[in-house]
């Protein structure tokens, strides 16, 4: 008797879950509006990084080529950015961003004689890109290898950040006091190609943290909050050994930190600290946090070898929501997960490119559900031992579709188009490659 009740209960649970799932998806199906706005006739620009001396180093410069959405989705169509593309200004991998409608590329050159120079390219299809007549240099404020992203404010503003080389300060008795650099936060007017504002300040941690040698080494990946009155800036932490003055290779990490500054004044820096995640919040070469549909900011972490990457939540009061605990290791069932780049795709869904311990640096794509705190490796993509998303920068989100470029170093690959509501993967245009090179994104 008892048994059958249990069976019935289990059966009921399964059915309920099923019904819920069905009702959920039927909800989506009923709602014919796409998750994100659609731009008709949007260009899809692919960018490829060239090797310099070692395969995959991406230091030989960057080339771009643009195709229509139809061509990008067509697996019979081939794109060869290295033979047919146009080089963009940069002696190493360019730091590219694109306007939401794909009509403009924003570029800041990275290192070299003209490092730190901002310019735009009008996308005209194929290899036809028109460089803006004016360029501006942010090098005096943010250096020749600046870290920057554009804000999601209608493509009006880009924000670059920098920290000067942190310096050890001792007290009157020559005892270690703290290590600090001077931070710069700078706004670029993307439309008029001008620097529109900047601030420079030292950012202190708590006295206790500083005395142990913790300090902010770099800033990166600023994000504008929903209210549009604060910027949340990711940090990259380092630790000095207070006894020897040397930087420590391994150390016990503090809770993940971000800097919150007023916007648009860029003033009043405040440090916020998570008790959930311990990794850096800087990302690498592209966005690392996004305002979700629910108005909260979701932020990825890196470089926490012990716990792997987390997705952290910053609420609309601009504080970490420590009740939100989303470990990628737990969700994916791996150890030492590491998010190289990711992109919010609407309705609590995001896509991340990542690697993990034991994968020999191989990259994978995961679908993340930020509300359910679940993640799943995306199947239907041709994974390869030489696939490495370490320098990956660009996803395109257009309507219900997310575009991603997948090429192992030195091998052919494809654009993949993922249907955001269902997660269905479609193989798109073929990406022709050359030995040592890899594609770093779609824009």
């Amino acid at each position, binding site marked *: 008797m008892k048994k059958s009740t249990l069976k019935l209960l289990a059966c009921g649970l399964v059915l309920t879950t099923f019904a819920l799932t069905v009702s959920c998806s039927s909800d989506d199906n009923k709602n014919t509006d796409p998750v994100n706005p659609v731009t008709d006739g949007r260009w899809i620009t692919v960018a490829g990084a060239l090797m310099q001396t070692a395969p995959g180093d991406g230091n*030989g410069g960057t080339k771009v080529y643009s195709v229509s959405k139809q061509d990008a989705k067509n697996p019979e169509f081939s794109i060869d950015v290295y033979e047919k593309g146009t*080089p963009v200004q940069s002696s190493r991998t360019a730091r590219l961003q694109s306007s939401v409608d794909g009509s403009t590329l924003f570029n800041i050159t990275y290192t070299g*004689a003209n490092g730190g120079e901002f310019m735009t390219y009008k996308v005209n299809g194929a290899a036809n890109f028109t460089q803006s007549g004016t360029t501006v240099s942010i090098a*005096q404020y943010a250096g020749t290898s600046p870290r920057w992203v554009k804000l999601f404010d209608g493509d009006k503003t880009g924000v670059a950040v920098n920290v000067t080389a942190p310096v050890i300060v001792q007290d009157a008795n020559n005892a270690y006091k703290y290590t600090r650099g*001077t931070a*710069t936060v700078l706004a670029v007017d993307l439309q008029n190609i001008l620097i529109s504002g900047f601030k420079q300040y030292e950012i202190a941690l708590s006295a206790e943290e500083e005395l142990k040698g913790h300090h902010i080494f770099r800033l990166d990946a600023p994000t504008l909050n929903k209210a549009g009155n604060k910027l949340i800036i990711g940090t990259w932490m*380092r630790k000095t050994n207070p006894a020897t*003055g040397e*930087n420590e290779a*391994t150390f016990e990490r503090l809770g993940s930190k971000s800097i919150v500054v007023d916007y648009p004044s860029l003033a009043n820096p405040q440090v916020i600290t998570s008790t959930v995640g311990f990794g850096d919040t800087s990302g690498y070469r592209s966005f690392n946090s996004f305002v979700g549909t629910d108005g909260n900011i979701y932020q990825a972490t890196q470089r926490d070898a012990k716990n792997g990457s987390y997705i952290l939540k910053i609420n609309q009061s601009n504080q970490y929501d420590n009740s939100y605990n989303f470990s990628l290791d737990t969700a994916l069932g791996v150890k030492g997960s590491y998010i190289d780049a990711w992109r919010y795709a609407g309705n609590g869904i995001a896509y991340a490119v990542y690697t993990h311990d034991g994968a020999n640096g191989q990259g994978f794509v995961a679908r993340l559900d930020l509300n359910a705190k679940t993640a799943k490796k995306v199947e239907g993509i041709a994974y390869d031992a030489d696939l490495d998303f370490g320098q990956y920068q660009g996803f395109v989100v257009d309507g219900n579709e997310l575009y991603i470029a997948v090429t192992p170093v030195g091998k052919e690959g494809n654009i993949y188009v993922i249907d955001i509501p269902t997660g269905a993967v479609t193989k798109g245009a073929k990406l022709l490659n050359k030995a040592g090179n890899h594609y770093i994104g779609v824009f």
Partner: protein
Amino acid sequence: MRFIAFVFLFVHLSVWSQKGNVTGKVTFSSNETAFGASILVLGTQKFAVADNNGEFEIKGLSYGEYTLEISSFEAKTKTVKFHLNRPSHNINIALEKTNDPKILKEVLVQKTTVKKEIMEKGFSVNVIETQEAAKRNIQTNDLLSQSAGVRVRQNGGLGSSVNYNLNGMSGNSIRIFIDGIPISTYGSSFNLNSIPPALIERIEVYKGVIPAHLADDALGGAINLILKKGAKNSLSASVSYGSFNTVQSNFNTTYRDKSGFTLKGSGFYNYSDNDYEVWGKFVYNILPNGRYNYVRAKRFNDAYRSYGGRVEAGFTDVKWADTFLIGFNVSDDFNEIQHGQSMTKPYKGRFSEADAQVISVNYAKKDFIVKGLEFTVNSVFSQRNEVVNDTVRWNYNWFGEKALGLYGDPILSPTGAQQGARTIQHLDSKIFSTRGGLNYTLNDNHKIVFSSMLYTFGRNQFDELSPLESSFLPTRNLFKNVLSLAYELEAFDSKLRTNIFGKRYEQQTEQRDPSIITENGQNKYIEVISKNTTSFYGYGIATSYFVVPKVMASLSAEKAIRLPSENEIFGNPGENLTGNNSLKPEQSDNLNVGLRFGPYKIDNHKFTVGGSGFWRNSKDKIVRQFSNRLNEALQTSPAVNLGNAQSIGYEAALEYSYNSKLFVSMNMSKFNSLFKDKYDNNGNILPYYNQQLPNEPYFTVNGNVQYNFKNIVQKNSELNLYYNFGYVGEFYTTWLEIDKTTAQFPHDLGLSYTFPGKKFIVSFDAKNITDEQVYDNFAVQKPGRAFYMKLNYIINKF
């Protein structure tokens, strides 16, 4: 191998044929001895110079008919025929004295002797003579860059940092020596920027294949400066002034009394503001909103000052020593640094200071213990210090003003100071370097050369601005020993010369890392010592053959190496470089082949033409291991043996003179430096395989014309006019071939006037007369049009 067997076969033949010596005495008709007259056996490469008593000896001539050509600057050239049919033949020759001293010819005769001897050994070598340049407003680096196959890449004007490229090889693979001692012993204050040509006897540039006596791990080539050696009583001094407030002065004196006691002294002082104008694509002031304002501006943080002195005392030409000199050398320099790798960010207040104190002992003796054994030893101890100072925290524009930000305030520099973090970095080094040589001449045909070079280097560094960190920086010691053995052979009346050599390199490095450990709750200071030893063998050959008396073919080849540097072995935390003690040396197979015709004389025309081809194939190049997810804050990566490269090319030189009045010389060099890493991990051919490396000038042409007038204003005076150009072909600066430099073609003019009595020489030089923008490095402009005036004073006998 077959070639060597062939060589030995013929050696035997020539050794078996009967041989004799010619001795004699050369006098002027007045019975005055003809000191310095040269005696050449026509049709062979044998020659001798008459000594103080007018006597000479030429050994090892096969029996037969010969003609001697005797020339002296004080007499008419004479030829004498004789038949050699006994072991020793004595000839006395009387020359007819002329009243018209041909100073220039004397210079030429002396030139050919040393230069010829080096050139004819079969190495690919430039011998640069400084005699003419010393009178003019020419720097040592200018002289080098005018010679074939040498590209000097300087980051601006006088005193700025220099990189040398020899036949496509550069950087760490080129070693520079002063009298065979590595130049690092003398520090940055005594280098090719500061030593004036007047203190240099000659410069030897060995390309690819390095003779045994210069033993060092010079993978791509070596530049050896021979300082003035003369033991005649003389005094010379000069001072030059010109554009950009440039002063260059020096003196050099030698005194020798009859007992052989010799005292030598020399000194130099150089100063320049280097405030030349720069303009163009890379020279702009950045407005507060980020826009550019292109300007023409004078460099404002580029002054350079160096001075140094050298005293040597001892004995020369005495029974127990040909040379025994103890020397003391001090030098000091101050160098402002205007910018880094490109001109786009001007610096203010960044400078370096260096000084060195060097003690040296020199001993040389021919017929040491036994006849035919020559012993030389040169020991040098130096203490050198260097400070790099960069503490100014603001950005500056090209007008030397603080760059202002959007709100009218100065902007803090994004790195903390001008180039990087704020620093007052001290580097103190103690170096002991010894070069010893034993040459044993078995007979005229066989010679054995043994050479040993020891180099020990200890370094301490600290940063005044981070005292805590500095007290925990490692101490580095390096010990290097290179042994080489060479066998030199001359055969067929000196038509064939061959030099086979082997070298053994050994390097030990030691690092002491201070650290703190906690034991029973107590902090304890300990030192962790790590050591490393690398040893390696190399070998090579150089050979020349006179097909006919005026046509020389040469070939040289070497398996050359470069030992890994201490940073590459132990790592450098400042550069996030971790140690790798299994690093092998870089290796390169180098080959040169050459052909030289001349000198031919047709009436008053005299010319020499030569050309050579070269090939360098280097592997196991030491490069930084690449990692994508490299966390620059925490993780580090080691250096590994990975890269391959190849350089292949040719050079040619032409020398022409007319009636000892017009002298023309030209040379050109063209090479391809190719990327030789062929496959990626999956066996696919890399896109840049076999492509030209970007940012390397690869086509250059240099030309010089000199015209000599005699008795032009005053009787017994001399006027020389000079013209010189240096053409550098265009080249791409990146792999993507977006940016290309323009071809460069600057011209220089000069004149020098020697007053009657030969004591005073005045010279005037105009450089880059068309005020062209010239670059050695991409985006770094060198000085434009400039004028210099120089006064030389020389007394040769007192």
